[in-house]
Protein backbone atom coordinates (compact mmCIF):
# COMPACT_ATOMS: atom_id res chain seq x y z
CA UNK A 1 0.00 0.00 0.00
CA UNK A 2 2.88 2.33 0.80
CA UNK A 3 4.51 1.63 -2.53
CA UNK A 4 1.25 2.61 -4.11
CA UNK A 5 0.98 5.92 -2.27
CA UNK A 6 4.62 6.57 -3.09
CA UNK A 7 3.99 5.95 -6.77
CA UNK A 8 1.02 8.32 -6.71
CA UNK A 9 3.07 11.00 -5.00
CA UNK A 10 5.86 10.47 -7.52
CA UNK A 11 3.42 10.87 -10.40
CA UNK A 12 2.11 14.14 -8.98
CA UNK A 13 5.66 15.35 -8.38
CA UNK A 14 6.54 14.54 -11.99
CA UNK A 15 3.85 16.91 -13.19
CA UNK A 16 5.48 19.89 -11.45
CA UNK A 17 8.54 20.37 -13.72
CA UNK A 18 6.31 19.84 -16.75
CA UNK A 19 3.93 22.55 -15.53
CA UNK A 20 6.90 24.87 -14.97
CA UNK A 21 8.19 24.12 -18.46
CA UNK A 22 4.77 24.85 -19.92
CA UNK A 23 4.71 28.24 -18.22
CA UNK A 24 8.24 29.05 -19.44
CA UNK A 25 7.46 28.09 -23.04
CA UNK A 26 4.21 30.02 -23.19
CA UNK A 27 5.99 33.05 -21.70
CA UNK A 28 8.78 32.83 -24.27
CA UNK A 29 6.36 32.28 -27.14
CA UNK A 30 4.38 35.41 -26.51
CA UNK A 31 7.39 37.64 -25.89
CA UNK A 32 8.50 36.71 -29.39
CA UNK A 33 5.17 37.61 -31.00
CA UNK A 34 5.49 40.24 -33.72
CA UNK A 35 4.29 43.75 -32.97
CA UNK A 36 4.91 45.97 -30.00
CA UNK A 37 2.37 45.23 -27.26
CA UNK A 38 3.00 48.62 -25.66
CA UNK A 39 2.05 50.37 -28.91
CA UNK A 40 -1.07 48.21 -29.14
CA UNK A 41 -2.23 48.92 -25.62
CA UNK A 42 -1.58 52.63 -25.97
CA UNK A 43 -4.09 52.74 -28.83
CA UNK A 44 -4.20 54.25 -32.29
CA UNK A 45 -3.80 57.87 -31.20
CA UNK A 46 -0.68 57.17 -29.15
CA UNK A 47 2.34 59.45 -29.17
CA UNK A 48 5.86 58.06 -28.59
CA UNK A 49 5.67 59.37 -25.00
CA UNK A 50 2.38 57.64 -24.24
CA UNK A 51 3.71 54.39 -25.73
CA UNK A 52 6.72 54.70 -23.43
CA UNK A 53 4.39 55.32 -20.48
CA UNK A 54 2.36 52.24 -21.34
CA UNK A 55 5.53 50.22 -21.65
CA UNK A 56 6.57 51.20 -18.12
CA UNK A 57 3.03 50.61 -16.86
CA UNK A 58 2.96 47.11 -18.36
CA UNK A 59 6.43 46.36 -17.03
CA UNK A 60 7.74 45.72 -20.55
CA UNK A 61 10.82 47.88 -19.92
CA UNK A 62 12.15 45.47 -17.31
CA UNK A 63 14.56 42.61 -17.96
CA UNK A 64 13.28 39.24 -19.10
CA UNK A 65 13.75 37.41 -15.75
CA UNK A 66 11.93 40.26 -13.99
CA UNK A 67 9.10 40.12 -16.50
CA UNK A 68 8.92 36.38 -16.02
CA UNK A 69 8.70 36.74 -12.24
CA UNK A 70 5.87 39.24 -12.59
CA UNK A 71 4.18 36.90 -15.03
CA UNK A 72 4.34 33.94 -12.65
CA UNK A 73 3.00 36.01 -9.75
CA UNK A 74 0.10 37.25 -11.88
CA UNK A 75 -0.55 33.75 -13.11
CA UNK A 76 -0.73 32.45 -9.55
CA UNK A 77 -3.50 34.99 -8.98
CA UNK A 78 -5.34 33.73 -12.05
CA UNK A 79 -4.48 36.86 -14.02
CA UNK A 80 -3.67 36.20 -17.68
CA UNK A 81 -3.61 39.86 -18.65
CA UNK A 82 -6.00 41.88 -20.74
CA UNK A 83 -7.03 41.13 -24.30
CA UNK A 84 -6.43 44.03 -26.65
CA UNK A 85 -9.20 43.12 -29.07
CA UNK A 86 -12.03 42.47 -26.61
CA UNK A 87 -10.76 44.79 -23.88
CA UNK A 88 -11.63 42.23 -21.20
CA UNK A 89 -9.59 39.98 -18.95
CA UNK A 90 -8.33 36.97 -20.89
CA UNK A 91 -9.37 34.71 -18.02
CA UNK A 92 -12.96 35.95 -18.35
CA UNK A 93 -12.95 35.53 -22.13
CA UNK A 94 -11.61 32.00 -21.86
CA UNK A 95 -14.01 31.05 -19.07
CA UNK A 96 -16.90 32.36 -21.19
CA UNK A 97 -15.92 30.35 -24.21
CA UNK A 98 -14.51 27.21 -22.64
CA UNK A 99 -17.91 25.50 -22.09
CA UNK A 100 -18.66 25.74 -25.83
CA UNK A 101 -15.40 23.99 -26.69
CA UNK A 102 -15.77 21.39 -23.97
CA UNK A 103 -19.35 20.62 -24.97
CA UNK A 104 -18.17 20.05 -28.53
CA UNK A 105 -15.10 17.99 -27.60
CA UNK A 106 -16.86 15.79 -25.06
CA UNK A 107 -19.80 15.08 -27.35
CA UNK A 108 -17.34 14.19 -30.11
CA UNK A 109 -15.39 11.87 -27.81
CA UNK A 110 -18.57 10.15 -26.63
CA UNK A 111 -19.64 9.68 -30.24
CA UNK A 112 -16.31 8.24 -31.33
CA UNK A 113 -15.98 5.96 -28.28
CA UNK A 114 -19.47 4.61 -28.88
CA UNK A 115 -18.43 3.56 -32.37
CA UNK A 116 -14.71 2.86 -32.06
CA UNK A 117 -14.65 0.60 -28.99
CA UNK A 118 -17.27 -1.92 -30.20
CA UNK A 119 -15.66 -1.84 -33.63
CA UNK A 120 -12.21 -2.53 -32.20
CA UNK A 121 -13.51 -5.37 -30.05
CA UNK A 122 -15.36 -6.96 -32.96
CA UNK A 123 -12.33 -6.64 -35.23
CA UNK A 124 -10.05 -8.24 -32.64
CA UNK A 125 -12.36 -11.17 -31.97
CA UNK A 126 -12.69 -11.93 -35.69
CA UNK A 127 -9.24 -11.23 -37.16
CA UNK A 128 -9.13 -11.31 -40.95
CA UNK A 129 -12.90 -11.06 -41.27
CA UNK A 130 -14.81 -8.44 -43.20
CA UNK A 131 -15.28 -6.31 -40.09
CA UNK A 132 -11.54 -6.48 -39.43
CA UNK A 133 -10.83 -5.21 -42.93
CA UNK A 134 -13.43 -2.48 -42.43
CA UNK A 135 -11.74 -1.52 -39.18
CA UNK A 136 -8.33 -1.33 -40.87
CA UNK A 137 -9.68 0.79 -43.71
CA UNK A 138 -11.51 3.11 -41.32
CA UNK A 139 -8.44 3.49 -39.12
CA UNK A 140 -6.14 4.41 -42.00
CA UNK A 141 -8.71 6.64 -43.69
CA UNK A 142 -9.63 8.25 -40.37
CA UNK A 143 -6.15 9.54 -39.59
CA UNK A 144 -5.83 10.85 -43.14
CA UNK A 145 -8.92 13.03 -42.88
CA UNK A 146 -8.20 16.73 -42.54
CA UNK A 147 -10.87 17.78 -40.00
CA UNK A 148 -11.55 21.07 -41.73
CA UNK A 149 -12.21 19.21 -44.97
CA UNK A 150 -14.53 16.63 -43.38
CA UNK A 151 -16.47 19.49 -41.86
CA UNK A 152 -16.89 21.22 -45.21
CA UNK A 153 -18.01 18.01 -46.91
CA UNK A 154 -20.55 17.35 -44.16
CA UNK A 155 -21.89 20.90 -44.48
CA UNK A 156 -22.23 20.48 -48.21
CA UNK A 157 -24.04 17.15 -47.96
CA UNK A 158 -26.28 17.75 -44.95
CA UNK A 159 -26.90 21.50 -45.19
CA UNK A 160 -26.78 22.31 -48.90
CA UNK A 161 -27.86 19.04 -50.55
CA UNK A 162 -30.06 17.29 -47.99
CA UNK A 163 -31.20 20.41 -46.16
CA UNK A 164 -31.45 18.53 -42.85
CA UNK A 165 -28.74 20.37 -40.93
CA UNK A 166 -29.16 23.96 -39.75
CA UNK A 167 -26.83 26.63 -41.11
CA UNK A 168 -23.34 26.07 -39.73
CA UNK A 169 -23.18 29.28 -37.73
CA UNK A 170 -22.55 28.91 -34.04
CA UNK A 171 -24.17 27.09 -31.18
CA UNK A 172 -27.78 28.17 -31.53
CA UNK A 173 -29.98 29.47 -34.31
CA UNK A 174 -31.10 33.10 -34.02
CA UNK A 175 -34.66 31.88 -33.54
CA UNK A 176 -33.85 30.56 -30.06
CA UNK A 177 -32.89 32.38 -26.90
CA UNK A 178 -29.81 31.17 -25.09
CA UNK A 179 -30.75 29.07 -22.07
CA UNK A 180 -30.09 30.58 -18.67
CA UNK A 181 -26.40 30.22 -17.78
CA UNK A 182 -25.78 27.46 -15.25
CA UNK A 183 -22.98 25.27 -16.58
CA UNK A 184 -22.45 26.94 -19.94
CA UNK A 185 -23.24 23.64 -21.67
CA UNK A 186 -26.31 24.49 -23.74
CA UNK A 187 -27.62 20.92 -23.69
CA UNK A 188 -27.44 20.71 -19.89
CA UNK A 189 -28.66 24.25 -19.29
CA UNK A 190 -31.66 23.83 -21.57
CA UNK A 191 -32.49 20.53 -19.90
CA UNK A 192 -32.31 22.15 -16.46
CA UNK A 193 -34.61 24.94 -17.65
CA UNK A 194 -36.92 22.28 -19.10
CA UNK A 195 -36.85 24.09 -22.45
CA UNK A 196 -36.83 21.12 -24.83
CA UNK A 197 -37.32 23.20 -27.96
CA UNK A 198 -34.06 25.02 -27.30
CA UNK A 199 -32.47 21.71 -26.34
CA UNK A 200 -33.25 20.28 -29.76
CA UNK A 201 -32.13 23.51 -31.40
CA UNK A 202 -28.77 23.28 -29.64
CA UNK A 203 -28.47 19.58 -30.42
CA UNK A 204 -29.10 20.17 -34.12
CA UNK A 205 -26.28 22.74 -34.22
CA UNK A 206 -24.00 20.42 -32.29
CA UNK A 207 -24.39 17.26 -34.38
CA UNK A 208 -22.33 18.20 -37.44
CA UNK A 209 -19.29 19.70 -35.68
CA UNK A 210 -19.29 16.87 -33.13
CA UNK A 211 -19.42 14.22 -35.86
CA UNK A 212 -16.61 16.00 -37.74
CA UNK A 213 -14.40 15.96 -34.68
CA UNK A 214 -15.55 12.46 -33.76
CA UNK A 215 -14.57 11.01 -37.14
CA UNK A 216 -11.08 12.32 -36.54
CA UNK A 217 -10.72 10.80 -33.06
CA UNK A 218 -12.35 7.53 -34.06
CA UNK A 219 -9.28 6.07 -35.74
CA UNK A 220 -6.77 6.08 -32.88
CA UNK A 221 -9.34 4.74 -30.42
CA UNK A 222 -10.41 1.89 -32.72
CA UNK A 223 -6.80 1.07 -33.50
CA UNK A 224 -5.80 0.93 -29.86
CA UNK A 225 -8.89 -1.06 -28.81
CA UNK A 226 -8.18 -3.62 -31.49
CA UNK A 227 -4.50 -3.94 -30.60
CA UNK A 228 -5.13 -4.08 -26.85
CA UNK A 229 -7.92 -6.60 -27.30
CA UNK A 230 -5.71 -8.78 -29.53
CA UNK A 231 -2.87 -8.85 -27.04
CA UNK A 232 -5.26 -9.48 -24.15
CA UNK A 233 -6.89 -12.36 -26.01
CA UNK A 234 -3.54 -14.03 -26.65
CA UNK A 235 -2.53 -13.80 -22.99
CA UNK A 236 -2.07 -16.86 -20.81
CA UNK A 237 -4.85 -15.97 -18.40
CA UNK A 238 -7.35 -16.10 -21.26
CA UNK A 239 -6.15 -19.57 -22.19
CA UNK A 240 -6.48 -20.56 -18.55
CA UNK A 241 -9.96 -19.07 -18.34
CA UNK A 242 -11.01 -20.93 -21.47
CA UNK A 243 -9.45 -24.16 -20.22
CA UNK A 244 -11.34 -23.76 -16.97
CA UNK A 245 -14.51 -23.81 -19.05
CA UNK A 246 -15.71 -20.23 -18.62
CA UNK A 247 -18.28 -19.01 -21.11
CA UNK A 248 -17.26 -16.97 -24.15
CA UNK A 249 -18.99 -13.82 -22.89
CA UNK A 250 -17.34 -14.07 -19.50
CA UNK A 251 -13.90 -14.58 -21.04
CA UNK A 252 -14.37 -11.83 -23.59
CA UNK A 253 -15.87 -9.11 -21.43
CA UNK A 254 -15.00 -10.18 -17.90
CA UNK A 255 -11.31 -10.82 -18.57
CA UNK A 256 -10.06 -9.70 -21.97
CA UNK A 257 -12.00 -6.45 -22.31
CA UNK A 258 -11.31 -5.25 -18.77
CA UNK A 259 -7.60 -5.73 -19.28
CA UNK A 260 -7.70 -4.17 -22.72
CA UNK A 261 -9.39 -1.07 -21.33
CA UNK A 262 -6.24 0.20 -19.60
CA UNK A 263 -4.24 1.09 -22.73
CA UNK A 264 -7.43 2.42 -24.29
CA UNK A 265 -7.88 4.85 -21.41
CA UNK A 266 -4.30 6.06 -21.91
CA UNK A 267 -4.97 6.54 -25.62
CA UNK A 268 -8.01 8.61 -24.74
CA UNK A 269 -5.69 11.11 -23.08
CA UNK A 270 -3.63 11.40 -26.25
CA UNK A 271 -6.74 11.61 -28.38
CA UNK A 272 -8.02 14.42 -26.18
CA UNK A 273 -4.85 16.35 -26.97
CA UNK A 274 -5.37 15.82 -30.71
CA UNK A 275 -8.96 16.92 -30.49
CA UNK A 276 -8.02 20.10 -28.60
CA UNK A 277 -5.87 20.98 -31.61
CA UNK A 278 -8.45 19.84 -34.15
CA UNK A 279 -11.03 21.85 -32.23
CA UNK A 280 -9.45 25.03 -33.52
CA UNK A 281 -10.08 23.97 -37.12
CA UNK A 282 -13.57 22.59 -36.52
CA UNK A 283 -14.60 25.71 -34.62
CA UNK A 284 -13.42 27.86 -37.50
CA UNK A 285 -15.39 25.82 -40.05
CA UNK A 286 -18.62 25.89 -38.03
CA UNK A 287 -18.19 29.41 -36.58
CA UNK A 288 -18.38 27.75 -33.15
CA UNK A 289 -17.82 30.37 -30.44
CA UNK A 290 -15.28 28.34 -28.44
CA UNK A 291 -11.75 29.08 -27.31
CA UNK A 292 -10.29 27.76 -30.56
CA UNK A 293 -11.92 30.41 -32.70
CA UNK A 294 -11.08 32.94 -29.99
CA UNK A 295 -7.40 32.06 -30.42
CA UNK A 296 -7.59 32.28 -34.20
CA UNK A 297 -9.17 35.75 -33.97
CA UNK A 298 -6.50 36.78 -31.48
CA UNK A 299 -3.70 35.47 -33.71
CA UNK A 300 -4.87 37.54 -36.63
CA UNK A 301 -4.56 40.80 -34.68
CA UNK A 302 -1.51 39.51 -32.69
CA UNK A 303 -3.32 39.97 -29.42
CA UNK A 304 -0.53 38.47 -27.36
CA UNK A 305 -2.19 38.08 -23.98
CA UNK A 306 -5.09 36.20 -25.53
CA UNK A 307 -2.88 33.81 -27.50
CA UNK A 308 -0.68 33.22 -24.47
CA UNK A 309 -3.73 32.55 -22.34
CA UNK A 310 -5.12 30.11 -24.88
CA UNK A 311 -1.91 28.12 -25.37
CA UNK A 312 -1.35 27.99 -21.63
CA UNK A 313 -4.95 27.03 -20.85
CA UNK A 314 -4.81 24.20 -23.40
CA UNK A 315 -1.55 22.85 -22.01
CA UNK A 316 -2.73 23.10 -18.39
CA UNK A 317 -5.95 21.33 -19.32
CA UNK A 318 -3.99 18.58 -21.00
CA UNK A 319 -1.43 18.11 -18.21
CA UNK A 320 -4.21 17.95 -15.62
CA UNK A 321 -6.16 15.49 -17.69
CA UNK A 322 -3.16 13.20 -18.10
CA UNK A 323 -2.51 13.38 -14.38
CA UNK A 324 -6.12 12.44 -13.67
CA UNK A 325 -5.91 9.55 -16.13
CA UNK A 326 -2.74 8.21 -14.52
CA UNK A 327 -4.26 8.55 -11.08
CA UNK A 328 -7.41 6.76 -12.25
CA UNK A 329 -5.06 4.05 -13.42
CA UNK A 330 -3.80 3.67 -9.88
CA UNK A 331 -7.38 3.03 -8.81
CA UNK A 332 -8.25 0.61 -11.62
CA UNK A 333 -5.02 -1.31 -11.87
CA UNK A 334 -3.95 -3.19 -8.72
CA UNK A 335 -0.43 -3.60 -10.15
CA UNK A 336 0.15 0.17 -10.07
CA UNK A 337 3.25 1.07 -8.06
CA UNK A 338 4.33 -2.52 -7.51
CA UNK A 339 6.46 -2.64 -10.66
CA UNK A 340 9.96 -1.19 -10.46
CA UNK A 341 9.85 2.42 -11.51
Amino acid at each position, binding site marked *: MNARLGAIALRIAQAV*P*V*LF*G*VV*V*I*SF*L*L*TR*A*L*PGDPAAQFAGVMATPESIEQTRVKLGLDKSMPEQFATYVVQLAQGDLGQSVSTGRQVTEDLADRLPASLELTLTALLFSCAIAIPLGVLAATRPGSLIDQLCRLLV*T*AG*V*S*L*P*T*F*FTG*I*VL*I*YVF*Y*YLAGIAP*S*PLGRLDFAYLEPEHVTGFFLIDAAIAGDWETWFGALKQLVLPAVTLGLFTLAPIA*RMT*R*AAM*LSALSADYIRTARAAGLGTTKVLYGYAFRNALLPVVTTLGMVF*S*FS*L*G*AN*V*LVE*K*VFAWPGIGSY*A*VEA*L*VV*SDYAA*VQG*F*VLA*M*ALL*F*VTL*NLIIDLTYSVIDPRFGTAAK
Partner: protein
Amino acid sequence: MINAVEPTAVKPKIGSGNFAHIIYVLKENPVTAIAFGLFTFFLLSALVGPFVVPYDPLKTDAAIALQPPSLSHWFGTDNLGRDIFSRVIVATRLDLIISVSAVALSFVIGSILGSVAGYRGGAVDVVLNRILDTIMAFPLFVLAMGIVAALGNSVANIIYATAIINIPFYARLVRAEVNIRREAGFTLAAKLSGNSDVRVLSFHIFPNALPPMMVQVSLNLGWAILNAAGLSFIGLGVRPPTPEWGIMVAEGANFIVSGEWWVAIFPGLWLMLAVFTFNLMGDGLRDIVDPRRRV
Protein backbone atom coordinates in the same frame (compact mmCIF):
# COMPACT_ATOMS: atom_id res chain seq x y z
CA MET B 1 13.89 14.57 -51.03
CA ILE B 2 14.84 12.47 -48.10
CA ASN B 3 12.02 10.01 -48.53
CA ALA B 4 13.12 9.11 -52.04
CA VAL B 5 16.30 7.81 -50.51
CA GLU B 6 14.76 6.02 -47.56
CA PRO B 7 13.43 2.84 -49.11
CA THR B 8 16.82 2.20 -50.69
CA ALA B 9 18.45 3.00 -47.39
CA VAL B 10 16.31 0.37 -45.70
CA LYS B 11 16.76 -2.39 -48.23
CA PRO B 12 20.49 -3.03 -47.91
CA LYS B 13 19.98 -2.91 -44.15
CA ILE B 14 17.51 -5.77 -44.34
CA GLY B 15 19.79 -7.68 -46.66
CA SER B 16 19.27 -9.11 -50.11
CA GLY B 17 17.95 -12.35 -48.65
CA ASN B 18 14.98 -10.38 -47.45
CA PHE B 19 14.35 -8.79 -50.81
CA ALA B 20 12.07 -11.72 -51.48
CA HIS B 21 10.28 -10.81 -48.27
CA ILE B 22 9.58 -7.33 -49.60
CA ILE B 23 8.18 -8.73 -52.82
CA TYR B 24 6.14 -11.16 -50.75
CA VAL B 25 4.72 -8.36 -48.58
CA LEU B 26 3.87 -6.28 -51.65
CA LYS B 27 2.09 -9.23 -53.22
CA GLU B 28 0.35 -10.21 -50.03
CA ASN B 29 -0.77 -6.66 -49.49
CA PRO B 30 -1.59 -4.97 -52.79
CA VAL B 31 -2.64 -1.87 -50.85
CA THR B 32 1.01 -1.20 -50.07
CA ALA B 33 1.89 -1.52 -53.74
CA ILE B 34 -0.86 0.97 -54.58
CA ALA B 35 0.53 3.31 -51.93
CA PHE B 36 3.98 3.22 -53.51
CA GLY B 37 2.38 3.87 -56.91
CA LEU B 38 0.47 6.89 -55.58
CA PHE B 39 3.62 8.13 -53.94
CA THR B 40 5.41 8.08 -57.29
CA PHE B 41 2.50 10.05 -58.74
CA PHE B 42 2.77 12.76 -56.08
CA LEU B 43 6.52 12.89 -56.49
CA LEU B 44 6.10 13.39 -60.26
CA SER B 45 3.45 16.07 -59.67
CA ALA B 46 5.87 17.91 -57.42
CA LEU B 47 8.79 17.59 -59.85
CA VAL B 48 7.22 18.29 -63.24
CA GLY B 49 3.71 19.49 -62.26
CA PRO B 50 4.33 23.20 -62.83
CA PHE B 51 5.55 22.51 -66.40
CA VAL B 52 2.72 20.28 -67.56
CA VAL B 53 -0.42 21.90 -66.09
CA PRO B 54 -2.75 23.31 -68.74
CA TYR B 55 -3.19 26.81 -67.21
CA ASP B 56 -1.18 29.34 -65.24
CA PRO B 57 -2.23 28.71 -61.62
CA LEU B 58 -2.16 32.44 -60.83
CA LYS B 59 -3.90 33.79 -63.95
CA THR B 60 -7.30 35.27 -63.10
CA ASP B 61 -10.16 35.67 -65.54
CA ALA B 62 -13.39 37.15 -64.19
CA ALA B 63 -15.34 35.99 -67.25
CA ILE B 64 -15.07 32.33 -66.27
CA ALA B 65 -15.36 32.67 -62.48
CA LEU B 66 -16.90 29.80 -60.49
CA GLN B 67 -17.51 27.45 -63.40
CA PRO B 68 -18.28 23.83 -62.50
CA PRO B 69 -15.92 21.07 -63.68
CA SER B 70 -15.90 20.69 -67.47
CA LEU B 71 -13.68 19.25 -70.17
CA SER B 72 -11.60 22.40 -70.45
CA HIS B 73 -11.41 22.93 -66.66
CA TRP B 74 -11.37 19.46 -65.11
CA PHE B 75 -11.79 20.66 -61.52
CA GLY B 76 -13.73 23.83 -62.41
CA THR B 77 -12.63 27.39 -61.71
CA ASP B 78 -12.58 29.44 -58.52
CA ASN B 79 -14.10 32.85 -57.77
CA LEU B 80 -11.31 34.62 -59.66
CA GLY B 81 -11.55 32.32 -62.66
CA ARG B 82 -8.34 30.44 -61.89
CA ASP B 83 -8.14 26.83 -63.01
CA ILE B 84 -8.42 24.63 -59.93
CA PHE B 85 -6.81 21.56 -61.50
CA SER B 86 -3.64 23.50 -62.29
CA ARG B 87 -3.59 25.01 -58.83
CA VAL B 88 -4.05 21.65 -57.12
CA ILE B 89 -1.21 20.04 -59.07
CA VAL B 90 1.15 22.99 -58.66
CA ALA B 91 0.41 23.07 -54.91
CA THR B 92 1.85 19.55 -54.55
CA ARG B 93 5.40 20.88 -54.67
CA LEU B 94 4.93 23.42 -51.87
CA ASP B 95 3.06 20.97 -49.64
CA LEU B 96 5.67 18.27 -50.12
CA ILE B 97 8.54 20.69 -49.58
CA ILE B 98 7.01 21.85 -46.30
CA SER B 99 6.38 18.36 -44.97
CA VAL B 100 9.60 16.76 -46.22
CA SER B 101 11.84 19.52 -44.90
CA ALA B 102 10.00 19.61 -41.59
CA VAL B 103 10.32 15.86 -41.17
CA ALA B 104 13.96 15.92 -42.29
CA LEU B 105 14.76 18.62 -39.75
CA SER B 106 13.11 16.76 -36.91
CA PHE B 107 14.75 13.53 -38.05
CA VAL B 108 18.23 15.06 -37.85
CA ILE B 109 17.73 17.03 -34.64
CA GLY B 110 15.80 14.22 -32.98
CA SER B 111 18.48 11.67 -33.95
CA ILE B 112 21.30 13.75 -32.53
CA LEU B 113 19.49 14.56 -29.29
CA GLY B 114 18.23 11.02 -28.85
CA SER B 115 21.61 9.41 -29.61
CA VAL B 116 23.49 11.60 -27.18
CA ALA B 117 20.91 11.11 -24.44
CA GLY B 118 20.72 7.36 -24.99
CA TYR B 119 24.48 6.91 -25.17
CA ARG B 120 25.50 9.21 -22.34
CA GLY B 121 22.57 8.60 -20.04
CA GLY B 122 22.66 10.38 -16.69
CA ALA B 123 21.89 14.07 -16.35
CA VAL B 124 21.81 14.74 -20.11
CA ASP B 125 19.18 12.04 -20.47
CA VAL B 126 17.05 13.36 -17.62
CA VAL B 127 17.16 16.96 -18.86
CA LEU B 128 16.31 15.98 -22.43
CA ASN B 129 13.41 13.85 -21.25
CA ARG B 130 12.02 16.72 -19.19
CA ILE B 131 12.22 19.06 -22.18
CA LEU B 132 10.51 16.53 -24.44
CA ASP B 133 7.83 15.98 -21.80
CA THR B 134 7.20 19.70 -21.77
CA ILE B 135 6.81 19.87 -25.53
CA MET B 136 4.47 16.87 -25.47
CA ALA B 137 2.45 18.54 -22.71
CA PHE B 138 1.07 20.96 -25.29
CA PRO B 139 -1.62 19.91 -27.69
CA LEU B 140 0.78 19.82 -30.64
CA PHE B 141 -1.30 21.72 -33.17
CA VAL B 142 -1.88 24.46 -30.62
CA LEU B 143 1.86 24.66 -29.96
CA ALA B 144 2.53 24.90 -33.69
CA MET B 145 0.03 27.77 -33.88
CA GLY B 146 1.83 29.51 -31.04
CA ILE B 147 5.26 29.02 -32.61
CA VAL B 148 4.21 30.31 -36.02
CA ALA B 149 2.52 33.29 -34.41
CA ALA B 150 5.63 34.00 -32.35
CA LEU B 151 8.24 33.54 -35.08
CA GLY B 152 6.24 35.34 -37.72
CA ASN B 153 3.88 34.36 -40.43
CA SER B 154 5.95 32.66 -43.15
CA VAL B 155 6.39 29.30 -44.86
CA ALA B 156 9.82 28.80 -43.27
CA ASN B 157 8.31 29.22 -39.84
CA ILE B 158 5.61 26.65 -40.60
CA ILE B 159 8.44 24.25 -41.35
CA TYR B 160 10.23 25.06 -38.09
CA ALA B 161 7.03 24.76 -36.07
CA THR B 162 6.16 21.40 -37.62
CA ALA B 163 9.73 20.22 -37.05
CA ILE B 164 9.72 21.24 -33.39
CA ILE B 165 6.50 19.43 -32.58
CA ASN B 166 7.82 16.28 -34.31
CA ILE B 167 11.23 16.18 -32.62
CA PRO B 168 10.05 14.35 -29.47
CA PHE B 169 8.86 11.33 -31.48
CA TYR B 170 12.26 10.84 -33.14
CA ALA B 171 14.33 11.66 -30.09
CA ARG B 172 12.39 9.17 -27.95
CA LEU B 173 12.65 6.43 -30.57
CA VAL B 174 16.40 6.87 -31.11
CA ARG B 175 17.05 7.20 -27.41
CA ALA B 176 15.37 3.86 -26.72
CA GLU B 177 17.15 2.11 -29.60
CA VAL B 178 20.57 3.49 -28.66
CA ASN B 179 20.08 2.90 -24.96
CA ILE B 180 19.49 -0.85 -25.29
CA ARG B 181 22.67 -1.20 -27.38
CA ARG B 182 25.14 0.91 -25.47
CA GLU B 183 26.41 -2.08 -23.47
CA ALA B 184 25.94 -4.59 -26.28
CA GLY B 185 28.80 -6.89 -27.29
CA PHE B 186 29.41 -5.28 -30.64
CA THR B 187 29.53 -1.83 -29.06
CA LEU B 188 32.13 -2.92 -26.52
CA ALA B 189 34.12 -4.65 -29.27
CA ALA B 190 34.08 -1.52 -31.40
CA LYS B 191 35.22 0.56 -28.45
CA LEU B 192 37.99 -1.89 -27.61
CA SER B 193 39.30 -1.70 -31.17
CA GLY B 194 39.94 1.96 -30.53
CA ASN B 195 36.95 3.66 -32.15
CA SER B 196 35.97 7.02 -30.75
CA ASP B 197 32.61 7.48 -29.04
CA VAL B 198 31.29 9.53 -31.94
CA ARG B 199 32.31 6.85 -34.40
CA VAL B 200 30.83 4.01 -32.37
CA LEU B 201 27.61 5.94 -31.94
CA SER B 202 27.15 7.03 -35.52
CA PHE B 203 28.45 4.00 -37.43
CA HIS B 204 27.82 1.08 -35.09
CA ILE B 205 24.82 1.88 -32.94
CA PHE B 206 22.75 4.46 -34.79
CA PRO B 207 22.21 2.43 -38.02
CA ASN B 208 20.30 -0.10 -35.92
CA ALA B 209 17.70 2.53 -35.18
CA LEU B 210 17.12 3.30 -38.85
CA PRO B 211 14.43 0.73 -39.75
CA PRO B 212 11.91 1.83 -37.09
CA MET B 213 12.82 5.45 -37.90
CA MET B 214 11.83 4.97 -41.54
CA VAL B 215 8.38 3.82 -40.50
CA GLN B 216 8.07 6.86 -38.28
CA VAL B 217 9.19 9.14 -41.12
CA SER B 218 6.55 7.84 -43.47
CA LEU B 219 3.77 8.15 -40.92
CA ASN B 220 4.98 11.60 -39.93
CA LEU B 221 5.08 12.93 -43.48
CA GLY B 222 1.33 12.56 -43.78
CA TRP B 223 0.84 14.15 -40.43
CA ALA B 224 3.17 17.03 -41.33
CA ILE B 225 1.14 17.78 -44.47
CA LEU B 226 -2.09 17.79 -42.43
CA ASN B 227 -0.50 20.07 -39.90
CA ALA B 228 0.82 22.54 -42.46
CA ALA B 229 -2.47 22.57 -44.34
CA GLY B 230 -4.32 23.10 -41.06
CA LEU B 231 -2.13 26.08 -40.21
CA SER B 232 -2.66 27.71 -43.58
CA PHE B 233 -6.37 26.95 -43.30
CA ILE B 234 -6.59 29.25 -40.28
CA GLY B 235 -4.55 31.88 -42.11
CA LEU B 236 -1.02 31.17 -40.87
CA GLY B 237 1.98 30.64 -43.13
CA VAL B 238 1.17 30.44 -46.80
CA ARG B 239 -0.61 33.49 -48.13
CA PRO B 240 -2.93 33.88 -51.09
CA PRO B 241 -2.65 33.74 -54.04
CA THR B 242 -0.01 31.01 -53.58
CA PRO B 243 -1.57 27.67 -54.46
CA GLU B 244 -1.54 25.41 -51.38
CA TRP B 245 -4.11 22.77 -50.46
CA GLY B 246 -5.06 24.10 -47.03
CA ILE B 247 -5.54 27.68 -48.13
CA MET B 248 -7.50 26.56 -51.21
CA VAL B 249 -9.91 24.63 -48.99
CA ALA B 250 -10.24 27.73 -46.81
CA GLU B 251 -11.04 29.88 -49.85
CA GLY B 252 -13.50 27.30 -51.13
CA ALA B 253 -15.25 27.01 -47.75
CA ASN B 254 -17.01 30.33 -48.42
CA PHE B 255 -18.69 28.90 -51.50
CA ILE B 256 -19.77 25.57 -50.09
CA VAL B 257 -22.99 26.94 -48.55
CA SER B 258 -24.04 28.31 -51.91
CA GLY B 259 -23.38 25.01 -53.68
CA GLU B 260 -20.07 25.66 -55.49
CA TRP B 261 -18.57 22.47 -54.08
CA TRP B 262 -15.66 22.02 -56.48
CA VAL B 263 -13.67 25.00 -55.17
CA ALA B 264 -13.05 23.33 -51.79
CA ILE B 265 -13.60 19.64 -52.51
CA PHE B 266 -10.83 19.01 -55.04
CA PRO B 267 -7.93 20.51 -53.09
CA GLY B 268 -9.29 18.78 -50.00
CA LEU B 269 -9.47 15.43 -51.78
CA TRP B 270 -5.91 15.81 -53.00
CA LEU B 271 -4.71 16.67 -49.53
CA MET B 272 -6.53 13.65 -48.14
CA LEU B 273 -5.13 11.38 -50.81
CA ALA B 274 -1.57 12.54 -50.13
CA VAL B 275 -1.91 11.94 -46.40
CA PHE B 276 -3.58 8.60 -47.05
CA THR B 277 -0.68 7.58 -49.31
CA PHE B 278 1.93 8.36 -46.68
CA ASN B 279 -0.02 6.56 -43.98
CA LEU B 280 -0.50 3.45 -46.12
CA MET B 281 3.19 3.54 -47.01
CA GLY B 282 4.08 3.77 -43.35
CA ASP B 283 1.93 0.75 -42.56
CA GLY B 284 3.47 -1.12 -45.48
CA LEU B 285 7.00 -0.23 -44.44
CA ARG B 286 6.22 -1.42 -40.96
CA ASP B 287 5.07 -4.77 -42.31
CA ILE B 288 8.35 -5.04 -44.20
CA VAL B 289 10.61 -3.80 -41.41
CA ASP B 290 8.93 -5.28 -38.38
CA PRO B 291 5.97 -7.60 -38.93
CA ARG B 292 5.39 -7.97 -35.18
CA ARG B 293 4.39 -4.36 -34.72
CA ARG B 294 1.54 -4.67 -37.15
CA VAL B 295 -1.72 -3.68 -35.47
